[in-house]
């Protein structure tokens, strides 16, 4: 007589999974691959879509900060490297 029939039942049920094991694993991997693909697409294009939506609805989009030269020189664009007025330096 088994010590715990519930455990025996679990073993019995688990045995029936052997033939299905590979198929389920493949399907799970396939589903996860699909979700990752969708995630990658969203990660890549969502910022662009938001930007387009903002522009279409009349927004100005992200503002670029202008930096003032502490020594009183001309202000530069957001990247801070390129002078706003070339040929003045």
């Amino acid at each position, binding site marked *: 007589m088994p010590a715990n029939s519930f455990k025996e039942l679990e073993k019995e049920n688990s045995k029936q999974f052997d033939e299905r094991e590979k198929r389920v694993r493949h399907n799970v991997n396939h589903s996860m691959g699909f*979700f990752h693909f969708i995630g990658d697409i969203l990660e890549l294009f969502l910022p662009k879509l938001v930007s387009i939506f903002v522009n279409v609805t009349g927004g100005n989009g992200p503002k670029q900060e202008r930096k003032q030269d502490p020594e009183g020189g001309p202000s530069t664009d957001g990247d801070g490297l390129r002078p706003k007025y070339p040929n003045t330096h």
Partner: protein
Amino acid sequence: MTRNITLTISDEEAVTEYIATQNQKYFDVLYTRYSSKIFGKCLSILKDEEKAEDATQEIFVKILLNLSKFSGKSKFSTWIYSITYNFCIDTIRKGKKDKSILVEDMTNEHDMAEDGIEDRFLMEMNVKRLKVVLEKIPVTDKAILLMKYQDDMSIKEISGILSKSESAIKMKIKRAKQKFKRIHKEIYTENLNSI
């Protein structure tokens, strides 16, 4: 390589590594350890191999998508079994439009009349009979009995999974055992004393 990892790494380590690296081998470790057990539980509750296979697949996808939510407060096995039981209970309830809840409520009064049942009665039963009786009892009672006797979960763990108080769970276990014994008696009346 994967075989070595399977033997040495704990569930929690495999989860942490999978989240950090998304490496397939860590998923394989968890899948190898739990897929057949999850299938077994789904089969016990859903009573259909095809449905159990589909459920196992969906449960694993759910587990992987929610892996980052595993906080480590409970054992990993308890966490995935909670997803499994709740998924199966929801599936049954959706299919039957909550008939199981009605059956459960209707049988409560009758059950209250009976008294405590020894665990030995359930645990030493013939597996075939156990299977037959489990198929006849409501899904929540079946899930509770499986959690207690198959997964050795504590009252606290079961109460966490089913979102009920510990005293409510104790009462539910008692009622589930009483229902089990009554149904067993109905089916195997003449052989009851021989178990």
